[in-house]
């Protein structure tokens, strides 16, 4: 099946479905439960480009919470379920860098044989596979991009600040897409890619350090003049937003899919306040 | 079985996948102007560089340095320069020496270090007890990087019990990361190019 490199023009999309690559959406469990709009936004972004996207009903978790706590063997059935639920698809798009990284690892652990789908983080897919060069949207705000660790260092979606001479790195696809949004001003924090401190179970095992790390990120973004902090990973933003709201900091936190659709910035914040 | 036998036996019994020793090849840094880079690097390390210009002799330049003019006792470890004292023979006797003049074999451009070996400083305490060091480096005796440095040292490395790459005066930042030049070794290093 040919990959997406040059996406079919929108008017032909779906006309001959059996010849188009089959695309499915993987919905991280916490997005499903806590941030359904992010999943809708992801779907909207893909469908606006003429894709037919399936959302397999039998999917569950990528297994990261179990893997990262050392219970990798307990996560294996989840990897098997993932492969089964998404069998027959060529591309799986996931609005989370850490889940995409975990899914790739899960697939790598499975016995080889059956063709596996290729797993992409959302922005990676939009830029690399669909070749997005235009976005017809306005987002008139000052935005800071929080570079989540898994997306950056494991998926390689950007140039980590540790990189020494001789290393090759690509442009962060999220940064590229934000650059296509009208009226958006990208502001840069002092520390370009320091970890937010969420780290899954870390946030409750080491709450002191976790909170200090997050508070420092929030202060950095605020000092940079950001109105909105965005990221490829909502988990980081969930943690940062929780800290910012506790300290009544006036920052908004939106997943990049929401920014790329120009969602009103008050919407997510209102949802969080009602929680 | 003593500790040595036990350890070697234990290690030999382990299965470790062999990895080939790599050849030390690579695009290692070269400088269009090695001298410029050397001076810059030594400056970054708080060293001072002075040249012997036309019309001056090495002795004149060394004797004219501030640290030497202010010294009560200064010695030279090379016949090319004369101090105001003979160099002591015992390590502890260098405690009262203000300035020691020592020849270096060559410098390394990438980091401003010079190679001083045991032949240049038979009593190595001279290099560390002196309050100030004056290092003599012949013009052009520079390599670009450390790989070239070791190639240049070659088998002479084992001819001496001691050899040192020295880059600038001693320093520390152990108190609140404030850089203090002059820790336990020399408080200043002046490199004289001649």
């Amino acid at each position: 099946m040919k990959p997406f490199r040059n996406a079919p023009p929108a008017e032909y999309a779906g006309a001959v479905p059996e010849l188009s690559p089959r695309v499915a959406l993987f919905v991280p469990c916490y997005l499903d439960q806590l941030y359904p709009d992010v999943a809708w936004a992801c779907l909207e972004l893909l469908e606006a480009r003429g894709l037919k996207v399936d959302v397999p009903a039998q999917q569950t978790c990528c297994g990261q919470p179990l893997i990262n706590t050392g219970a990798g063997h307990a996560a294996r059935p989840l990897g098997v379920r993932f492969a089964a639920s998404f069998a027959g698809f060529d591309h799986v798009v996931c609005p989370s860098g850490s889940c995409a990284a975990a899914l790739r690892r899960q697939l790598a652990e499975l016995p080889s044989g059956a063709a596996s789908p290729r797993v992409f983080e959302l922005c990676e897919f939009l830029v690399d596979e669909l070749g997005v060069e235009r976005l017809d949207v306005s987002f008139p705000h000052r935005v800071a991009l929080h570079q989540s660790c898994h997306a950056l260092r494991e998926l390689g979606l950007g140039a980590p600040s540790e990189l020494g001479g001789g290393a090759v790195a690509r442009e962060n696809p999220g940064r590229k897409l934000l650059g296509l949004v009208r009226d958006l001003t990208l502001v840069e924090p002092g520390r370009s890619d320091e970890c937010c401190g969420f780290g899954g179970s870390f946030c409750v095992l080491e709450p002191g350090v976790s909170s200090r790390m997050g508070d420092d990120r929030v202060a950095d973004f605020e000092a940079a003049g950001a109105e909105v902090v965005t990221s490829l990973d909502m988990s980081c933003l969930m943690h940062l937003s929780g800290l910012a709201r506790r300290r009544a900091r006036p920052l908004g936190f939106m997943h990049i899919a929401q920014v790329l659709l120009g969602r009103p910035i008050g919407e997510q914040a209102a949802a969080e306040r009602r929680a | 079985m003593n500790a040595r036998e036990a350890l070697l036996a234990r290690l030999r019994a382990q299965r470790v996948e062999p990895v080939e020793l790599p050849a030390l090849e690579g695009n290692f840094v070269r400088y269009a102007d090695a001298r410029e880079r050397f001076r810059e690097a030594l400056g970054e390390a708080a060293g001072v560089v002075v040249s012997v210009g036309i019309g001056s002799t090495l002795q004149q330049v060394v004797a004219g340095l501030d640290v030497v003019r202010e010294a009560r006792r200064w010695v030279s470890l090379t016949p090319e320069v004369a101090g105001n004292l003979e160099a002591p023979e015992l390590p502890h006797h260098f405690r009262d020496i203000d300035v020691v003049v020592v020849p270096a074999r060559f410098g390394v451009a990438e980091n401003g270090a010079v190679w001083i070996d045991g032949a240049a400083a038979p009593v190595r305490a001279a290099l560390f007890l002196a309050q100030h060091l004056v290092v003599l480096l012949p013009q052009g005796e520079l390599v670009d990087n450390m790989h070239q440095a070791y190639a240049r040292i070659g088998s002479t490395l084992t001819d001496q019990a001691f050899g040192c790459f020295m880059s600038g005066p001693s320093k520390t930042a152990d108190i609140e990361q404030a850089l203090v030049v002059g820790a336990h070794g020399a408080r200043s290093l002046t490199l004289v190019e001649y």
Partner: protein
Amino acid sequence: MSERLVGHPARARLFLADEARSRFHDGALWEIRRRRDRRARDLPEWQELRALAARIKAHMLGRLPGYLEQFEANATRHGAVVHFARDAAEHNRIVLELLRARRITRVVKSKSMLTEECGLNPWLEQHGIEVTDTDLGELIVQLRKEPPSHIVLPAIHLRTQDVAETFAAELAAPPLADPVSLTRFAREHLREKFLAAQAGITGVNFAIAETGGFVVCTNEGNADLGTALPGLHIACMGLEKLVPRAADLGVFLRLLARSATGQAITVYSSHYHGPRPGAELHIVIVDNGRSSIRAEPEHRRALACIRCGACMNTCPVFRRSGGHSYGTEVPGPIGSILAPLRQPERHASLPHACTLCGSCSAVCPVGIDLHEQLLALRRRQVDGGPAASAAQAPVATRGKRWLVALVAWALSSPQRTARLGAWVRWLGRRLPGLLRAGPLAAWSDTRELPPLPRRSFQEQYAERRARATPDAGAQQGVGREEPS
């Protein structure tokens, strides 16, 4: 949570309680990390050097017994005496015997993490021998009777006034307010110690199998003064410090200082081959658990560590918790691997003192995949270690195992996940206090809760799925619920 996970988190909390100090610590180490970045970017061959270093160490570890013998033979030819020590106790006995036999009571010591590991100072002091640590940072912590908090910057957790107070209390120093005068004071104090010392103990940065020599790198000149004056030099090294060839030093010396402090090279890189004329050189090669690590394919590469400290400088957790939080002489990411390998139960909290951000692996000059090793150690806590390892029993508590099984069961079926998720959200909306209590208080102590929508995405999408017909094109936007 597990009782044993009290270790690092509790100590970190103490460190963070002093906000000014902990912020200073974080900022100071971040600045050093940035200096490292600038140096690394200056060298187009930086990645190549890292790869070379990793392979040289991997090769050396593969042929370790041969290289040890080669080193010993060559060192002996130059007039050094080589000793082997199985463990810390044997190392300490050997050093004590060397000193006792010569009736030595005054010793100066330059930085050696190995001697910290072996607890050498207290041992010698117990036996009436005065040991003065001569690295300024080490001197300061020695006077304060506390361990170093960083392997390269031992006193990074202290402020200038702490040092001033310590010098006044322990060395009868006059009131001194700034780093320069404090350093000058220490210089004079230590100068007398160097001159009066009867033996100098150093560590070893690199030992060269090909020549039987070794290298000691410092900025202060203290190792050199400690070995240029007394008649006895004792060099203590872990068996993993070997490099095969002198030329290999070119690679390691280019990586070490740049990674450690952002300097192109340390002020002094001293090469020793045999004793000074008229003096003695003894080299003590120590195992103390290193050979066990070598036996483990997954963790063997942790022995490549050249003790540069770059992983500590970059680790966001280390910077905000301080070296003393780790309870082991080598802290930070590498220490969180080495200590649990030796004592899994005592150091059970260390592999979890990490967000798996991967920055440590990105800076390690010898290419150790530190964060992957930490993850592997978490697995070992659940699954148990290999039969040959120090402790094979799983360390994870029954409570944790129970929780894992529960979570795995819940997530294994989409219906179960949906029901549980709906239930938690429903409960959270009705009884908000519930989600802030118990173990979840660790979240809510400092953070607001995330939103609890009425319907999950899958619940909303199910409607659209029901409405969809097989041959329809993309249905845009159908089914999205306004956030509520």
